[in-house]
């Protein structure tokens, strides 16, 4: 079967606009328009999904005003591969009783009283085949959290998308600068 491109295009244009033969939608303009649509689709598809959290956690309040260490909530950050997220038990340490009068503080205490598990969601995600260990980077190499996580400690509301783009280029640039292993099996298995 042979396909006549020009006929196909004019039919497609007709279907799109209902203006069969509209002069301005011919040739380069149409191609440009399709390219633009494709670009928008690609950009939207490549963006990570927004991450929602059970409560509006305020990092500034906890890490700066109250001077809690990161490991208070991310309990395995110095010892394990995964830093860990806080759960109802961690929050209960303080929020069993209402802290302050903000609407969110009231809500946390109410949720805890109701037995809500307060499941926080991972914001920074690595591909499944990347074997990253927080212990190696935080406890041994003494990197600051912000090196990879950006200004997370200065957020007052939970960001819905990661503040930095952690990809292989990002990892390798640091590994090369600090003369650390760039061996494939160091991260991939």
């Amino acid at each position, binding site marked *: 079967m042979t396909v006549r491109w020009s006929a196909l295009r004019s039919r497609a244009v007709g279907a799109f606009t209902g203006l069969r033969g509209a002069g301005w939608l011919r040739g380069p303009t149409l191609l440009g328009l399709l390219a633009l649509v494709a670009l928008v689709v690609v950009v939207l598809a490549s963006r990570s999904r927004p991450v929602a959290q059970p409560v509006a956690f305020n990092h500034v309040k906890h890490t700066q005003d109250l001077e809690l260490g990161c490991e208070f909530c991310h309990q395995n950050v110095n010892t394990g591969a995964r830093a860990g997220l806080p759960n109802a038990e961690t929050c209960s340490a303080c929020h069993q009783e209402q802290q302050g009068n903000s609407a969110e503080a009231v809500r946390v205490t109410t949720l805890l009283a109701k037995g809500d598990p307060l499941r926080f969601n991972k914001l920074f995600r690595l591909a499944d085949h990347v074997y990253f260990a927080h212990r190696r980077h935080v406890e041994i190499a003494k990197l600051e959290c912000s090196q990879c996580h950006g200004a997370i400690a200065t957020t007052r509301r939970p960001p819905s998308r990661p503040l930095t783009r952690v990809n292989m280029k990002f990892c390798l640039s640091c590994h090369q600068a600090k003369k650390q292993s760039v061996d*494939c099996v160091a991260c*991939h298995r």
Partner: protein
Amino acid sequence: MPRWGMVIDLDRCTGCGACETACKSENNVATVSSDQADLGRATAWMRVMTEVEGEFPNTTMRFMPRPCMHCDNPPCVKVCPVAATYINDEGIVGQIYPRCIGCRYCANACPYTVKYFNWFAPEWPESERAHLNPDVSVRPKGVIEKCTFCHHRLQKAREDARAEGRELREADYQPACVDACPTGAIVFGDLDDPQHRVAELKHDARAMRLMEDLGTEPKVYYLTPRAGT
């Protein structure tokens, strides 16, 4: 820079298969059904090869544990079209699963037949899924897998040594098969470090390597059985 290698004393090997089991458990090696195993589709990064020598009743059973030889001149690396298999600075021949396209050139190039293709998606009974080793990936269908000398253990050992502010010791990094061997037949360490036992054992009069004439320079040595055993 260390050059990791292994020496296996065939006089000490009783063929118990502990190394094989320990390896499968450590490295999340999936099992296949027995009919597929008969077709040669079973995976064992470490396999105890068996052979009966002599004629009945004067027979001797021979055993030969066979892991990846981690050749210094690996034929599998030469044929990989996507650089999924490569030899690192410490002599470990790695396999990067997300890169592997499953062409199986390497499996065919390997004279020791220690590269395994995943013909099926890995499956475990529900009761065993919680026991998978989180430090090792579960390989998907369609990629080649192989022994890594338990490289993840090296990483962990280095991490511990650095945290304690000391040098890596020989005993810190031992693959699972070595740990499991009840007779101490498998010895592992840095072939270039005179402090390590393997550096001495590789010069033993009984030491030999498999298919040395191919020029693959394997880093697994065997100590051949003494006469009369």
